[in-house]
C-alpha cells in the first residue's frame, strides 16, 4: 500500500515531499497543515462536489462583460508595440530610432542598450527571427506600430541552423551563446538490459516516428498592462501564474516582490505558453515607468504565432521487441528534439518508461538549440510527442503479431509505475480500455463508410496515455464568511478557461455546508490573495482544491463554535447543509445568516494549506482513446468520424466541465494529427505560416461525435479531495489513435504527422506502386 507522508511530522513542522510538474519531479520543503480533513472516499456523501453545475462565471463570458487583459484601460493609457528581427542570425550593425521618435503620437522608443540586463531585451546579437529589437510607446496601437516600422536597422547576417541536423553538424554555425546542444552526449534513461531484451524477443520492429512543431494558438494573445504608483508596479497579465510573473518582474526590474502586484481576471487560454512574464510585460513596465503613464502591450497575431512558444518537433527512432503472445521484452528509442533558441529537456522519452510493464527500456534523447523561437510547455509536453512514437510502435506490433491492439495493451498493463518502481495512488486504466472499447463498439467489425459519394476507406485505431497529475504544495487558501453569510474563497490561483473558479467554489460549498450560490471564488491577484503555484501540469484542482477544503472546514469549525452557544448545543452535535446549521437529531436549527447577523462584523476566517504528497507513490491520470476515420481515396482527405475517450482522473468535481476539457484536449490532438504544423523555411529561417489561415487549427466542421467520459472513482490516497488532474491527459493519445485509424484504413503505416492529404496520397500511391 502507498504510504502517507504524515509519519512523525507535527502540524506546523516541516517535511520534505515531491511534486511532479509537467513530468519533472521536484523536491520541496513544506509545512504540515494544522489538520488534515478525512479523505472523501467513494463512500462520502457529497452533493455539490460531483454535481454538473454550470460554470459560475459563464454569464460574464456570454455577455461580453468578462474583462480580459486587452480590455483593461487606465486613465491616460499608452500603447506599446515591439519591433522584431527579420533575420534568424546576425548582428545589428546600425539601428536608427530617430525616425520613430518624430512620428505623430509617439511618446517613447527603446532600443539596444535601453533595457535592464535582467529583461534580456533588445540585444544587438540576433539569434532568431522574431527576436525583439526595439519598442515604441504611443497614444494608439496604430501610431506605435507605424513608428516601430519607421525604425531603420542594418543587419550583418550570419549563417544559421534551423533544423536539428544543421545544428549538430560538424561545421554547424554557432547557434546561441549557450552552444548548439544542451549536453554533449544524449540524455539517457534506462532500466534493465535492452540488448538482452531484444535478443529474447520473438519479434523485433524498427520504426521512425516524426512529429511537427505545434503552435499554442490561444485566441487571446500574450499581453500585459502596467502602471506605476511611485515605486509600486501593478501588472495586468494574461498568465497561468500570477506569482511567477511577479517573481520574474521583480528580478528583471530589481523591484521588491511586495512592490509588484500582478492581476489576472479572465484569460483567453494558455495551454502552457503563458507561464511567466515575457517581453511584452517588461516593455509595458519599462515604458510605464519612463512615462508615468499606464502602458498596455499586447502581441499581435504574427508575434503570437512566431515568438510565443511552441511544442518542438521530434524524430523518434524506435525499436520494440516482444514475445509471440505480445509480452514486451524491450523498448529502445533514440530521439532528436530541436528546441528552438531556448527550452528545457522535457522530451518524448519519459512516457516510454511509464506506460507499460516492460523490463528493458532505454531512451537516448538529444536536444539541440536552433535559430528559431524557443519552445514552451504545450499541454502534455513531451508525452504528446512520445505517445506518437510509443503508441505507434505498439499498434505496429499488434498488427505484426495479429493481436488486437487493445488486448496487446492489456497484456502489458503495469500494476506499479515502472520508471521509479512505485505503487500508484489509484489506477483504472484497465477500465478505460474496457469501457472505452465497449462504448466504441471495438469488437464489432463495421467498416462501411458513412458517406457514399467518393471512394471512402474506413479504419479504426486506439492509443493510451499516462501523465502525472498529483499536484502538490505549496498552495494556500482563505475562506471568509461575510456578515450576510455570503462566502468568499480566496486563493491566488488562475482560471484559464478550465473552470477553476467553479470547481473551487464547489469544494468550498461542499466542505462548509453552504449553498453554492452563496459562495464566490476570488482568484488572480498577488496582492490580496494567498500563494498558489502556476496553473500548469494539470495541477490546480489537486493542489488548490485540498487547501480550499481545509480552509472551509476550518471556517466551519469556527462557525459551529459560535452557533453552539446560540443553539444551546455542543459544536460536535452540529451539522450544516444548504447554509443552515442543524443540531443533530433535533429540529433546532439556524441559517448561516442568522448566526453571522448575531456576530455582526466579527468575521470568521478559515485558513487552509496543501499538505505533502504521499511518499513513493505515483499519482497519475490514465486514459484510452478510440478513433474511427474515413479516408477519401481520391483526395487523401482524412475525416475523423467517431471518437471515444475513457479516462481515469480520480474523483471528478464537475463532470460537465471535466468533459469539456477532455473534448478540448482531443480536438487539439486532432489538429496535431491532421493539420497543424509550423512551417519554417530552411533557406530563410523564417516562419512561413504565422497566420490563423495558414496555420490550421480545427473548426467545427472537422469535429466528429465525441464520447468522452470518466471511469474509476475517488483517489483518497492522492489527496483528501480524491481528485487528480485532467487538463493535459486527453491530448496525449489522440494523434496516435487517429494515425492508427488512418493506417488501418489505407493499409500503410503512417509514421509522420500531420496526416495531410498529400502525405496520405503519397502513402496510397506507394501501395499502388507495390
Amino acid at each position, binding site marked *: 500500500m502507498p504510504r502517507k507522508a504524515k509519519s512523525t511530522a507535527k502540524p506546523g513542522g516541516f517535511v520534505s515531499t515531491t511534486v511532479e510538474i509537467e513530468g519533472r519531479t521536484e523536491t520541496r520543503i513544506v509545512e504540515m497543515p494544522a489538520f488534515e480533513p478525512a479523505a472523501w472516499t467513494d463512500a462520502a456523501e457529497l452533493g455539490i462536489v460531483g454535481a454538473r*453545475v*454550470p*460554470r*459560475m462565471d*459563464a*454569464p*460574464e*463570458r*456570454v*455577455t*461580453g*462583460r*468578462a*474583462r*480580459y487583459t*486587452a*480590455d483593461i*484601460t487606465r486613465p491616460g493609457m499608452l500603447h506599446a508595440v515591439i519591433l522584431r528581427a527579420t533575420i534568424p542570425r546576425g548582428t545589428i550593425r546600425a539601428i536608427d530610432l530617430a525616425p520613430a521618435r518624430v512620428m505623430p503620437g509617439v511618446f517613447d522608443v527603446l532600443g539596444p542598450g535601453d533595457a535592464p540586463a535582467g529583461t534580456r531585451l533588445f540585444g544587438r546579437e540576433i539569434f532568431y527571427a522574431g527576436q525583439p529589437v526595439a519598442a515604441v510607446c504611443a497614444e*494608439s496601437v*496604430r501610431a506605435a506600430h507605424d513608428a516601430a516600422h519607421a525604425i531603420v536597422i542594418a543587419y550583418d547576417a550570419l549563417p544559421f541552423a534551423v533544423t536539428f541536423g544543421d545544428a549538430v553538424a560538424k561545421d554547424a554555425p554557432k547557434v546561441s551563446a549557450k552552444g548548439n546542444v544542451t549536453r554533449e552526449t544524449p540524455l539517457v534513461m534506462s532500466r534493465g538490459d535492452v540488448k538482452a531484451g531484444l535478443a529474447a524477443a520473438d519479434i523485433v520492429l524498427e520504426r521512425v516516428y516524426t512529429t511537427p512543431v505545434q503552435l*499554442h*494558438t*490561444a*485566441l*487571446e*494573445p500574450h499581453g500585459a498592462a502596467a502602471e506605476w504608483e511611485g515605486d509600486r508596479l501593478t501588472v495586468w497579465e494574461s498568465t497561468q501564474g500570477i506569482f511567477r510573473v511577479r517573481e520574474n518582474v521583480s528580478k528583471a526590474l530589481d523591484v521588491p516582490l511586495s512592490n509588484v502586484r500582478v492581476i489576472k481576471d*479572465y*484569460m*483567453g*487560454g494558455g*495551454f502552457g505558453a503563458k507561464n511567466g512574464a515575457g517581453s511584452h510585460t517588461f516593455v509595458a513596465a519599462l515604458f510605464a515607468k519612463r512615462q508615468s503613464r499606464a502602458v498596455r502591450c499586447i502581441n*499581435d*497575431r504574427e508575434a503570437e504565432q512566431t515568438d510565443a512558444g511552441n511544442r518542438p518537433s521530434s524524430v523518434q527512432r524506435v525499436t520494440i521487441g516482444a514475445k509471440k503472445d505480445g509480452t514486451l521484452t524491450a523498448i529502445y528509442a533514440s530521439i532528436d528534439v530541436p528546441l528552438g533558441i531556448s527550452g528545457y529537456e522535457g522530451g518524448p522519452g519519459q512516457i516510454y518508461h511509464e506506460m507499460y510493464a516492460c523490463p528493458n527500456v532505454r531512451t537516448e534523447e538529444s536536444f539541440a538549440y536552433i535559430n528559431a523561437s524557443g519552445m514552451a510547455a504545450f499541454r502534455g509536453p513531451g508525452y504528446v510527442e512520445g505517445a506518437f512514437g510509443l503508441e505507434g510502435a505498439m499498434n505496429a506490433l499488434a498488427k505484426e503479431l495479429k493481436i488486437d491492439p487493445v488486448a496487446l495493451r492489456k497484456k502489458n498493463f503495469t500494476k506499479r509505475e515502472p520508471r521509479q518502481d512505485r505503487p500508484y495512488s489509484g489506477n483504472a486504466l484497465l477500465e478505460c480500455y474496457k469501457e472505452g472499447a465497449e462504448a466504441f463498439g471495438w469488437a464489432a467489425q463495421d467498416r462501411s463508410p458513412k458517406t457514399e459519394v467518393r471512394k471512402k476507406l474506413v479504419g479504426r485505431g486506439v492509443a493510451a496515455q499516462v501523465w502525472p497529475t498529483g499536484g502538490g504544495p505549496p498552495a494556500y487558501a482563505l475562506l471568509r464568511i461575510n456578515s450576510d453569510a455570503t462566502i468568499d474563497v480566496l486563493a491566488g490561483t488562475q482560471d*484559464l*478557461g*478550465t*473552470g477553476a473558479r*467553479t470547481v473551487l*467554489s464547489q469544494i468550498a460549498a461542499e466542505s462548509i455546508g453552504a449553498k*453554492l*450560490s452563496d459562495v464566490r471564488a476570488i482568484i488572480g491577484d498577488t496582492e490580496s490573495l494567498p500563494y498558489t503555484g502556476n496553473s500548469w501540469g494539470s495541477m490546480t484542482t489537486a493542489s488548490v482544491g485540498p487547501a480550499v477544503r481545509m480552509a472551509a472546514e476550518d471556517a466551519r469549525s469556527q462557525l459551529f463554535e459560535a452557533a453552539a452557544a446560540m443553539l444551546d448545543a455542543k459544536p460536535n452535535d452540529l451539522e450544516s447543509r444548504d447554509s443552515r446549521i442543524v443540531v443533530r437529531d433535533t429540529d433546532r436549527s439556524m441559517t448561516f445568516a442568522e448566526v453571522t447577523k448575531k456576530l455582526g462584523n466579527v468575521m470568521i476566517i478559515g485558513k487552509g494549506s496543501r499538505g505533502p504528497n504521499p511518499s513513493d507513490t505515483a499519482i497519475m491520470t490514465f486514459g484510452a482513446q478510440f478513433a474511427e476515420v474515413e479516408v477519401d481515396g481520391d483526395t487523401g482527405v482524412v475525416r475523423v468520424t467517431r471518437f471515444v475517450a475513457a479516462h481515469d482522473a480520480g474523483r471528478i468535481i464537475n463532470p*460537465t*466541465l471535466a468533459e*469539456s*476539457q477532455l*473534448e*478540448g*484536449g*482531443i480536438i*487539439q490532438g486532432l489538429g496535431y494529427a491532421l493539420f497543424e504544423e509550423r512551417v519554417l523555411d530552411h533557406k530563410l529561417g523564417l516562419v512561413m505560416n504565422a*497566420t*490563423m*489561415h495558414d496555420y490550421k*487549427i*480545427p*473548426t*467545427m*466542421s472537422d*469535429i466528429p461525435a*465525441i464520447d468522452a467520459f470518466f471511469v474509476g472513482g475517488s483517489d483518497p490516497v492522492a489527496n483528501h479531495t480524491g481528485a487528480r488532474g485532467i487538463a493535459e491527459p486527453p491530448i496525449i493519445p489522440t494523434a496516435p489513435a487517429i494515425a492508427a485509424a488512418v493506417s488501418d484504413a489505407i493499409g500503410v503505416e503512417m509514421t509522420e504527422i500531420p496526416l495531410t492529404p498529400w502525405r496520405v496520397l503519397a502513402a496510397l500511391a506507394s501501395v499502388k506502386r507495390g
Partner: protein
Amino acid sequence: MRLTVNGRVHDLDPAPSLTLLDLLRDKLSLTGTKLVCDRGECGACTVQLDGEIVYSCLTLAEACEGANVVTVEGLATGGSSPELTPLQRAFIAKDAAQCGFCTPGQLIAAHTLLAKNPRPSSDEVRAGMSGNLCRCGTYPKILEAILAVADGEFEQKTEDGGAHAA
C-alpha cells in the same frame, strides 16, 4: 456619421482608417468583441451589421454610416442583471464557453444563423459556424447549444437557466 449600436444612436467622426472593431472597443468601450487575428481568419470579431455577420476587424467604420450594429453586449437587455437570450442561456447550460474569448463572436454568428435558418441541421450548423475558431475545443458544446435552441429547449426562461444559473 450616424451609427446605431445595440439600439443606441451615436454620432461619430471616425478616422478613415479606423476599423469598426476599434471603434466599438476603443471609442464606445464595447470590449466584448475581441481582436484575435486582425485579418478575417478567426471570427472572434464577428458582429452583426444590418442583420448580416461581418468581420469587424476588416470593416471600416466609415463604411457603416447609417447602419445598425449588434454586438455581444446588445444581445441581452436589462443592465447588470440582464434578460439573456435563449442562446446565451443555452451556452451557459451546455458549457459552450471555456476560456470565453471566442464566445462573443460565436454567439453573434449563432444568433444570425438561427435568424436565417431557425431549424438548421447539425451539418448546417457545422458549416455555418466553421468561420468561428475556438482553441479550447468547445465545438461539441457550441453545436449542442445551438441545436437545443433550434429545438425550442430554451424558449421559456427557466429558473435554473438564468443569468446566475449556478
